[in-house]
């Protein structure tokens, strides 16, 4: 390694190739390696539509973007420092966001007439000077990989599949990453197919050696470990974090998990994850549709399980009627909605925050329930855990919101100690003497949880309005008004136990940025940059969208202006304007993409300048 090593604060790398090129796999592996050596990371897997397109076409391009940093970061980066493009289509789709003078590594073999045509290039971009502002490295990856594997006597089809690891090897060299983790990863992943394990290992090493040997790269770079708070870390996606959070809540509460779910992008991974933990007593039921999914969940909650259902927007729409039943019967059901871009089928693999209003109001009648949103992949753990805790404490359905961006995205997660998790005490009703199905706990207004099988507590519940004590059907006008009020009050009561809002910045000033959900990282980055420039801007981020925190009104009142950036047409902003009569401004983006912090910064400047 005789070449100079330059130290960088952070770097953003984008792998792009055909859907079949294994970009997600190697991107993810680089993320894990980087996390393991102590970098902070932010990732953005960027699949094409759910359907696989023909090889080499523009819609078939799959991308994986990774932000590696020596500091605490909150986003997967915007413009890339390096782009690895495995074919012309990948180049075309991604070159726009490569920084000037950025590193561009292309797989030269793929720049042939047919592929250029599929990518709708009239001429070869490697030859017409259009890439002059980048550091272009055209590498014959296919040939080099085949060459490296020659002894293994694999078919060229199989050998060619290894070129993603060749590319990864190059990147490892370029950014001075240690290959140990990747080596053991390959060994585990291909444990049952030794020849593939060996092939990929050879390819990986070949990529690295290629850089070492050739004069291609003048410099290599390194990104020092970030100064994260001490502790044990693990890299995980938001969807996995939800699964972990639910299992943790199950273990702490002593309730077995029941998941009723119907697959849907981008929520299916929670079902996949949870279905693996049968030894934790997790029962997963792949239902015939979303309605059966939530209904089985309601049944499971009724029978005493920690019951949840997972879905995305269109599925939540289907569940509306049944959510109302859970509200009426006051059963603890957690409804996880991993949002995607709508309306209708919309853009299923793209992210959006456009189901907040649906979560608040998407069912008949007055049917209020708590709504929580996770802010980052790792926060999915805590928020899902909290959703479970609130559901069983208050005997209420709860909607947990996340989205494709944080559901698929990953980041280092400080692994919690079990002992530090909040308790989730659960007591089923037992005493026939004192039991009445709707007699509420004075503090929480929760009704008792009396599960079938308990002697002496036989009772009937249902979706018709119930008497305030016995739970029998009641057509009384006064009772209906009372019960409607109690259902609302129970939800409002939760606000009493919410912690004081954390204000990032001064607690009064010119501008307050109010966020919720997956915009957390971007908003934090943008606001901190502006604060560093001495701007009077602060930021809060809401986990609870219903009820809103008790101190929110006061906090809002301390700022001259309020802006609410959302990946929708402005939904939280409506709730705030309605409730607090503050002239909060909506800043909305509806492109199926997260915000860039630059966009937020510009908007902050505009508002402050107005």
């Amino acid at each position: 390694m005789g070449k100079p090593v330059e130290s960088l604060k952070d770097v953003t790398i984008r792998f792009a190739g055909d859907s079949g090129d294994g970009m997600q796999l190697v991107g993810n592996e680089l993320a894990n390696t980087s996390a393991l050596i102590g970098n902070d990371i932010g990732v953005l897997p960027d699949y094409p539509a759910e359907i696989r397109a023909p090889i080499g076409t523009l819609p078939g391009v799959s991308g994986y973007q990774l932000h590696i940093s020596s500091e605490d970061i909150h986003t997967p980066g915007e413009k890339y420092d390096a782009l690895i493009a495995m074919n012309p289509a990948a180049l075309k789709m991604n070159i726009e966001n490569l920084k000037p003078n950025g590193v561009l590594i292309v797989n030269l073999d793929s720049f042939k007439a047919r592929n250029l045509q599929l990518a709708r290039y009239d001429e070869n971009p490697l030859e017409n000077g259009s890439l002059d502002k980048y550091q272009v490295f055209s590498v014959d990856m296919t040939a080099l990989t085949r060459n490296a594997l020659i002894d293994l006597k694999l078919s060229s089809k199989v050998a060619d599949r290894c070129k993603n690891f060749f590319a990864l090897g190059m990147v490892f060299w370029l950014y001075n990453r240690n290959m140990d983790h990747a080596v053991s990863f390959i060994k585990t992943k291909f444990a049952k197919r030794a020849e593939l394990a060996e092939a990929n290992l050879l390819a990986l090493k070949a990529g690295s050696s290629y850089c070492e040997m050739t004069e291609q790269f003048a410099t290599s770079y390194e990104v020092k470990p970030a100064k994260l708070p001490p502790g044990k870390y693990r890299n995980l996606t938001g969807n996995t974090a939800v699964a972990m959070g639910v299992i943790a809540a199950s273990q702490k509460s002593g309730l077995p998990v029941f998941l009723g779910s119907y697959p849907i992008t981008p929520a299916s991974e929670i079902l996949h994850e949870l279905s693996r933990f049968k030894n934790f007593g997790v029962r997963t039921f792949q239902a015939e549709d979303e309605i059966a999914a939530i209904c089985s969940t309601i049944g499971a909650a009724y029978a005493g399980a920690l019951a949840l259902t997972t879905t995305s927007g269109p599925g939540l729409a289907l569940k509306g009627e049944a959510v109302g039943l859970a509200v009426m019967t006051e059963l603890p059901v957690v409804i996880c909605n991993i949002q995607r871009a709508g309306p209708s089928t919309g853009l299923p693999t793209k992210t959006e925050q456009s189901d907040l209003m649906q979560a608040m109001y998407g069912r008949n009648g007055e049917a209020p329930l708590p709504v929580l949103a996770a802010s980052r992949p790792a926060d999915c753990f805590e928020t899902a855990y909290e959703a479970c805790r609130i559901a069983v404490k208050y005997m209420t359905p709860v909607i947990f919101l996340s989205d494709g961006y944080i559901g698929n995205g990953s980041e280092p997660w400080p692994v919690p100690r079990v002992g530090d998790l909040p308790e989730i005490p659960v007591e089923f009703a037992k005493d026939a003497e004192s039991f009445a199905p709707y007699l509420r706990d004075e503090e929480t207004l929760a009704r008792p949880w009396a599960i079938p099988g308990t002697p002496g507590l036989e009772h009937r519940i249902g979706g018709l309005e119930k008497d305030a004590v016995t739970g029998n059907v009641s057509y009384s006008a006064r009772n209906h008004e009372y019960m409607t009020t109690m259902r609302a009050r129970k939800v409002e009561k939760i606000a009493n136990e919410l912690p004081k809002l954390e204000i990032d910045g001064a607690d009064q000033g010119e501008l307050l940025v109010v966020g919720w959900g997956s915009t957390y990282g971007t908003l934090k980055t943008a606001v901190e940059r502006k604060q560093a420039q001495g701007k009077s801007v602060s930021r809060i981020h809401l986990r609870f969208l219903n009820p809103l925190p008790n101190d929110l009104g006061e906090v809002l009142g301390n700022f001259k202006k309020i802006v609410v950036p959302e990946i929708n047409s402005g939904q939280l902003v409506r709730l705030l304007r309605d409730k607090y009569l503050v002239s909060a401004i909506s800043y909305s983006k509806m492109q199926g993409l997260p915000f860039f912090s630059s966009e937020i910064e510009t908007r902050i400047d505009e508002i402050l300048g107005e």
Partner: protein
Amino acid sequence: MSTLEKSASNGSAELKLTKKHFESDQEVRWCPGCGDYSILAQTQRTLPGLELDKEKYVFISGIGCSSRFPYYMNTYGFHTIHGRAPAIATGVKAVNPDLSVWVITGDGDSLSIGGNHLIHMLRRNVGLNVILFNNRIYGLTKGQYSPTSEFGKITKSSPFGSVDHPFNPVSLAIGAGATFVARTMDRDPAHMQKVIKTASGHEGTSFVEVFQNCNIFNDGAWLKYTEKEKRADNVVYLEQDKPLVFGANRDKGIRLDGFRPEVVSIADGKYGESDLLVHNEKDEDATYSFILSHMMDNPELPVPLGVFRCVDKMPYERALNEQVDAARKKMGEPDLQALLDSGDTWEVK
């Protein structure tokens, strides 16, 4: 493994249960004369004879006149939403297979809006007992045609006659993979009790269609079978290993011509009992029960009552819970901290 095994808990076991114990304090609110009363009474009469404590019973219904049923049973009860009872009951049974879970539903509830949950419950063979109150009409919403109403039926929503061909509920259930299918009627209490009892003993889904009269909106829909005088000639009672004989004088029987059932006289000497179809509810092959189910569609044949089909097949909740047990055995008791700490972790100092 049977869900009906005696519970060892400190339940109501010592008590000798009677019909009274299964009557709730709620006033029964069906129209006077409604067939639902009989189904309620037979259920309340049958359960005390089964070996289960009262608190182990859960009655789950959808929406419809029939679906009010759980309110009147002094057991656990859940009056849910329209058509969804099978799905809700599946959740209950999956979590607690020791419960005896009953799905109470109507022809609209289970065959119209709830059709999908019904067929999926049947194919999965979830250990639920389904009682379908078939009155061939939407009672609660005051008289529209249902998926079992006859083609051409005139109702509030079909003043010119319905243009829908009806389902044959038993054929549908068999096509969906049902392991237990039976039929009885409101006007034959003893038979109904027997069927309910048999159904409760089946380990997978037991599906019981009950001919039920809605005397307000579809009075007399089943008169041909329920009237004492006509019954003997229009109904054939199924009994295991017995030939299909019927008629006031038990002088007629069902014989198969290929796989087409036909009525023959066993009085005139041409045919004897040995020529007749012999009932075998245990036939693994669903074809036999399918043939029985279609007798309903041919007005020249009597309608079978009793158990059409009763075969063993892994029930859903057993398979599910066996996986949990096996995983426990293989992977050991759950350790949450170990789970959280698993995967690639690193230490920041």
